[in-house]
């Protein structure tokens, strides 16, 4: 059992509880122990770095300090939390390394475990992988060399048999935290991404961030295209129980598409 300190962030305790549940279920099944950081608090997100340079670092750094006692790695499933924690890590002498949940899933070791534990290959499912912004940018912070055409989610989805379609919108912005104050902007950006995914022949969009998933799922036009968390699809591939309760938390119910592809 490998153990990681786990920072769910506010969205995974709120709107995106299905991302939290599927992350815990999948990593548990793969023998990866996620230990929730006790007493964690909000990273400050866009609000802090837009209004106050001191809070921008201090709110995230507080969590990094708490993680010191817990182990070498702090895992965040939200791209925005990951980004703020990375900024705090860069400015500190902390020994903790911040990882995104996808970093853990796409390590050679986990990819191997995924292939070994595969119960229901996602062969019938055509997906596009949507990484969004803060998981990959800026590269000197994330350390990613393939930031214009990232591959880690593609590798994870391929490992469980999904047909990963090429598309050019992997890292285009969905509108992020503007959803409440400027829904017009978010709708324009997100609905275009969904349209492009459809054009690429995808049955669904795969995401690794609660903001990306929520924006794409709630602000799309036309016949609905399901927007999944990568962990939800991994749970299907591993044959885990209890996935139905997650589909009810999606605006566009993914169950019909998954059933048609023979995944459910």
């Amino acid at each position, binding site marked *: 059992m490998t153990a990681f300190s786990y920072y769910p962030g506010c969205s995974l305790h709120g709107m995106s509880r299905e991302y939290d549940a599927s992350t815990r279920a999948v990593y548990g099944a793969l023998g990866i122990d996620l230990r929730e950081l006790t007493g*964690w608090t*909000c990273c400050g997100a866009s609000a802090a770095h*837009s*209004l106050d*340079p*001191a809070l921008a670092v201090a*709110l995230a750094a*507080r969590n990094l300090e708490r993680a010191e006692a817990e182990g070498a790695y702090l895992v965040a499933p939200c791209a925005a939390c990951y980004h703020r924690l990375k900024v705090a890590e860069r*400015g500190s002498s902390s020994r903790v390394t911040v990882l995104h949940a996808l970093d853990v899933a796409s390590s050679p070791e986990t990819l191997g475990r995924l292939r070994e534990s595969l119960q229901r290959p996602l062969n019938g499912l055509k997906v596009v992988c949507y990484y969004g912004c803060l998981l990959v940018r800026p590269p000197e912070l994330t350390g990613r060399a393939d930031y214009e055409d990232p591959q880690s989610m593609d590798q994870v989805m391929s490992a469980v048999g999904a047909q990963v379609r090429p598309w050019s919108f992997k890292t285009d912005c969905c509108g992020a935290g503007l959803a409440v104050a400027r829904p017009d902007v978010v709708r324009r950006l997100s609905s275009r991404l969904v349209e492009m995914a459809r054009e690429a022949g995808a049955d669904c969009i795969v995401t690794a961030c609660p903001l990306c998933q929520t924006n794409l799922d709630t602000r799309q036009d036309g016949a609905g295209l399901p927007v999944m968390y990568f962990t939800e699809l991994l749970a299907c591939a591993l044959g885990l129980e209890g996935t139905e309760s997650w589909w009810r938390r999606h605006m566009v119910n993914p169950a019909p598409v998954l059933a048609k592809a023979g995944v459910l």
Partner: protein
Amino acid sequence: MTVNRAGPRSASVSPADRIRGVEGLDPELCFSCHKCSSGCPVADDMELAPHQLVRLVTANLEEEALRSSGIWLCTSCQTCTTRCPNGVDVAGVIDALKQRAAASGVKPRDGRVLAFYRAFLNEVRARGRVHEMALIARYSLGARRLPTDIRLGARMVRMGKISLARPKKAATGELRHLFERAKGK
């Protein structure tokens, strides 16, 4: 590709100094290639595009930039910063403009995003973690407007996506000190 950028930014530097170009935020390096604005997802919605904001800063005309609604449309997607051939942290410059506008009380022509960020930080300060329903309520009060997508919100409440029950507070005493220390800087 070579990534050539200056080191970590310090939290203790004032927004004005940061805009002027210490520690990796040197807008003087801009040679107006417009690459930042070409890749910007919201440039079309801004009355001043990212390269124009950087130009105003280098020309010491940042007052105009501070009043712009466009700075509040920046989603901090980091595309401009990532693609700048001269290593200007464009998103960082826009952050510094937002911080300075907020601190100096400059009223943007469209105050919605600023009101949302204020509501967000008030929620963090009060609760330690953000509860979506409470955040939307705070924003509506602060911006004196009902959320635009009431129907969508109602549906999300019905689905249980937005929860009405408030979660427990986390470390609020500690956070109050943290906010006070930040204010004192």
